[in-house]
């Protein structure tokens, strides 16, 4: 643990710049048809951000509806089994609807209400962001259409049913590879025609400016809480933060409030999948190059012609060929380290946490966990690692049963 410099630091206010740049990354690469919508959103968000009433309203929902603050839990038996650094878990899995996604969905939904928009649209891959948006739409009485690739709808049937029960319409997307990136394309196209009355709730710290900033800000409640909890419970700041990175929203939310704390190391963990070849992983920073996808410049997985590459991860939430531009910036500046963990390592970590702590983690979070276990083993018990347990694993049980050859079938 380090006790120095524990005065609160705000989210890094230096980025993005007014053009939405995080260093050389980010920006606004969109068709002109989206310009008015994106510009209007940036203005509305700037006003909401400075409005104490909006913040109070959001805080109220986060406390009484989502169940925040989420605990910072000392994983005693897990730490003991590793025999190294002490491991603390930021329990985002205990949020209403089962993951950190609701922090952003509610924030954006309240922003939509403030802008007078009565309909939400969202893209979803595994369905978690779709469920979070459908949940926010239900509680605020908004219409909701969720775009989802037909391939993902087949793989994530329970979440399709959940969204429909919540009153959302799930719009099947049959173009391209019929997965998350195609659902994102479809949502952007819908927004071109509907932005007058519709808000597009993007699910991660990706997309054109101001989305990466908005999503980071709404998710930063994770890091702000965590920072206070560390000071209260541990008497100082942690030594190391670890979070998984697909688009990177839970990691951005944990990391951003600690960016000014030079003593706190941070590692984002990508999905190394089943190999290094294109189509076998989803590690955009580890294996990708700078490029433009879905409206911003960041690390992306593309072939040499700029065509988006196929991706694979055991975890549907990490299965995205890009990463938020702020992560690209943190990578380039060296503020955050990025590592990658394989399907198998994540599965092993999943089993370990479940057995030792009675917590079933999401497969996304299991990637951060696998890295945490290795890191803890390399350090002494006087070191503290905080890992973001971004979601619970109930949604992954079918997949885990299949992979571990459990159950009757």
């Amino acid at each position, binding site marked *: 643990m380090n006790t120095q410099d524990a005065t609160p630091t705000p989210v890094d206010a230096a980025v993005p710049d007014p*053009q939405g740049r995080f260093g050389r990354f980010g*920006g*606004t*690469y*969109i*068709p*002109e*048809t989206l*310009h*008015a919508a994106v510009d209007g959103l940036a203005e509305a968000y700037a006003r909401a951000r400075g409005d104490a009433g909006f913040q109070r309203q959001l805080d109220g929902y986060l406390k009484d509806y989502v169940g925040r603050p989420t605990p910072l839990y000392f994983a005693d038996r897990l730490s003991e089994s590793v025999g190294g650094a002490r491991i603390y878990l930021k329990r985002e899995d205990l949020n209403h609807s089962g993951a950190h996604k609701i922090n952003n969905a509610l924030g954006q939904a309240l922003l939509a209400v403030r802008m007078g928009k009565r309909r939400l649209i969202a893209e979803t891959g595994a369905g978690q962001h779709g469920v979070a948006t459908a949940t926010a739409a239900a509680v605020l009485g908004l219409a909701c259409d969720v775009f989802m690739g037909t391939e993902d709808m087949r793989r994530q049937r329970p979440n399709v049913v959940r969204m429909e029960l919540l009153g959302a319409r799930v719009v099947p997307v049959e*173009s*391209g590879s019929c997965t998350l*990136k*195609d659902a994102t*394309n479809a949502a*952007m*196209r819908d927004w*071109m*025609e509907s932005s007058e009355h519709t808000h597009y709730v993007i699910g991660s710290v990706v997309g054109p400016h101001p989305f990466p900033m908005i999503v980071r800000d709404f998710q930063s409640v994770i890091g702000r809480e965590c920072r206070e909890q560390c000071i209260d419970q541990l008497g100082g700041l942690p030594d190391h933060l670890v979070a998984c990175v697909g688009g990177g929203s839970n990691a951005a939310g944990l990391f951003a409030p600690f960016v000014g704390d030079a003593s706190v190391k941070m590692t984002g963990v990508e999905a190394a999948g089943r190999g290094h070849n294109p189509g076998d992983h989803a590690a955009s920073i580890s294996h990708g*190059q*700078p*490029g*433009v*996808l*879905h*409206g911003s*410049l960041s690390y992306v997985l*593309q072939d*040499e*012609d*700029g*065509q*988006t590459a196929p991706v694979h991860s055991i975890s549907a939430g990490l299965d995205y060929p890009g990463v938020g531009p702020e992560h690209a910036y943190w990578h380039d500046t060296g503020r955050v380290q990025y590592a990658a963990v394989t399907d198998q390592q994540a599965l092993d970590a999943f089993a370990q946490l479940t057995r030792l702590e009675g917590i079933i983690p999401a497969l996304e979070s299991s990637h951060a966990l696998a890295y945490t276990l290795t890191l803890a083993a390399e350090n002494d018990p006087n070191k503290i690692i905080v890992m973001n347990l971004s979601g619970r694993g109930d949604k992954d049980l079918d997949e885990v049963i299949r992979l571990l050859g459990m159950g009757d079938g």
Partner: protein
Amino acid sequence: MNRINTIFKQLRADGGKALMPFITAGDPDLATTAALLPALERAGASICEVGIPYSDPIADGPVIQASMTHALRGGVRLAGVLQAIAEQRDRVGLGLVAMVSISIVERVGTKRFLTDAADAGFDGVIFPDLPVEESDSVRAAVAEHGLVCSLLIAPTTPIDRAERIARACSGFVYLLARSGLTGEQAELDGGLPERVRRLRAVTDLPIAVGFGISTADQVSEVVQEADAAIVGSAIMKRVATLRDDGGEAVVGGVERFVEQLAGGLSRQPRPATER
């Protein structure tokens, strides 16, 4: 002088208008794309927009996206497209403009892409997903390579912003007939002629109108005010229906359709009461 500028200068001198068909390179295959270029010229087109297939074309509608997916699944690569253009360049007088996502340009490298495109014989580029704010360095490079550059102006673009975009363009400005998806529509937006007139007041460049134009009547209506009509989805829809019949059928079908469309260039529009 750049060929696009020459074409519009000639048309203005003759009081003529331009038909600008769009085709996706490599749908159904590159041999057919090559064969389509002279066919488009015979049918009365002045400039052809050649869509470089991209995996995630958010500025395009379902028909063109499906067409690009088809081309990519068939193994079409950028180098192949450029080669096909290079082989046809001297056989046609058509202006050739590449419609290309900034994702491709960024990845290949702006300079390399533009050098290769110019060497292949393209006369200009259209970036459908590059807003004027992000365009400075790319536009400068386009000019250095002797190409013209068009950015898009939307129905939702305020006139002062439209003026800024027009100033950033060369060759012609590309005005969208409607927001959102490309694709056919039964009727053009009633506010379109007024939008063209207002744009005309702030730019001397030729104005090309596209998105949702699919009939000779609509071509006729558009060129009452604008300098050029762009037709994309309606053509690629015909390509999709004829794909299974082979390249010759595609070329024949598209040529007949573009001939019909070209008929709208010189025709008086039907009076509003008949519509």
